[in-house]
């Protein structure tokens, strides 16, 4: 499926989704956290889409919002896209887990929880993964300061 066909299908499922192609080599689909898991399930399970391989999951801390970024590929149809969820609540960022759809998400989501402090609803085992359990703060946030371990110039 090429990008145009993908766009049409996704718009028919989720008319509110924002579709962006500029400034990226993939088609970017931006949704809100409450639209995310329903759309993700369709992307994974619909025969024509069949995005079965999540090759990258991460988060970006923008000044006004957090952006969850999911890179998806279909092993069968060979098409790729980026699914994004914009989380406007900077105080208490929450989004649904996708680990029931792609198993790899479970551990990548733990990493995002660890380094960004995003809470994942329904995640089976949401704990810090790289840092100590008693670590204060979320290092990959832009406002994180650590006078001992971080040298800024």
């Amino acid at each position, binding site marked *: 499926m090429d990008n145009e066909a993908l766009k049409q299908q996704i718009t028919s499922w989720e008319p509110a989704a924002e579709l962006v192609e500029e400034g990226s080599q993939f088609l970017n689909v931006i949704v809100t956290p409450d639209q995310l898991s329903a759309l993700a399930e369709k992307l994974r399970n619909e025969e024509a889409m069949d995005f079965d391989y999540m090759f*990258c999951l991460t988060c970006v801390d923008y000044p006004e919002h957090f952006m969850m970024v999911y890179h998806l590929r279909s092993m069968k149809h060979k098409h790729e896209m980026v699914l994004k969820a914009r989380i406007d609540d900077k105080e208490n960022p929450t989004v649904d887990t996708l680990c029931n759809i792609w198993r*790899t998400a479970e551990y990548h989501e733990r990493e995002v929880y660890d380094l960004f402090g995003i809470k994942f609803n329904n995640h089976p085992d949401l704990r810090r993964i790289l840092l100590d359990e008693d670590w204060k703060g979320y290092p990959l946030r832009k406002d994180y300061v650590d006078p001992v371990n971080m040298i800024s110039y």
Partner: protein
Amino acid sequence: MEAVKENKDLKTQEYFVNMGPQHPSTHGVLRLMLGLDGEIITKVEPHIGYIHRSIEKMCEFDNYRQIVHLTDRMDYLSSHMNNEAVCLLIEDALEIEVSDRVKVIRTIFSELARLSSHQLWWAATGMDLGALTAFLYGFRDREMINDIFEETCGARLTMNYNIPGGVMFDLHPNFVQRVKDFIAHFKTKLPEYDELLTDNVIFRMRTEGIGVISKEDAISYGLSGPTARASGVECDLRKSHPYSAYDRVEFKEIILEDGDAFSRYKARLLEMWESMSIIEQLIDNIPEGDIEAPTKALIKLPKGEFYQRVETARGDFGVYVVSEGGKSPFRLKFRSPSFSNLFVLDHIAKGSKIADLVAMMATFDLVVPDIDR
């Protein structure tokens, strides 16, 4: 396993044992917390992060030339490919056209690095499963590749040979001859690897049918590299997203169906033959040309998002950059193959014995700094 389960009188209590962080078969600082019922594994919980250095945060303060040099500290056995990923991303974003000479040199170096990584993996796998001779054989042959690297770029492991726009030095005059000598030598030695381990009855019994990953699981868990290809997943980025000179060479993507530890072992051995074939196709006609395209001293990427993937010896290594137009990335993410590969362990190890867990780990070819970043 069956005997224990059938005997209802033998009541056992579940208990936990730490394997690592200093266990020899974890090849680094990785701790596996094993839930055990007698000798049967009920749960594997990897505890990682012992050598987490937050390279992604460091990159937000460094300029793009510096970032290249941080990447080979992650997967140190694929350092050349890691460097290449960042360089390709920068070249792609700034539309820098590198010469054919650079493309061919990078491809030859990548394949040499892959060979050397697989040799070390083979050596360590033998050692993990009790065949110490394999360790000596593997290291003997690997030494020749390291010497070739050293002659051209001065380093044996973390080479830093790639720079945005090209490579740092031209090839050493001896390079072509020494690579040819190595290929001729290793073609006679690789069959010895088969004689020593592949056809060994004990080795076969310890790996065949152990740690089977189905194709669906391999895809869902995001596996990549030889680990996924042994389960029948077509995921070789050199085929699906060719970069450097991979579009002008012919090689076979190694796909095996069984998905057990032995298939993963076999996949890497077969890959070594393919790597040698790629080098042979390129080594005789390395084109003339510049080794470095002109670039600005301070590299600034345009505003936007960039993603670049390369196939390292372990699998799909991805670099995701969000740029705001500055000299440092706004956000940079390294998608490392070992991180995704590790976490399938709990799924496949349930119900097997501790000794089999070592066989599974060995055939995953994990590099711990690549997991922890």
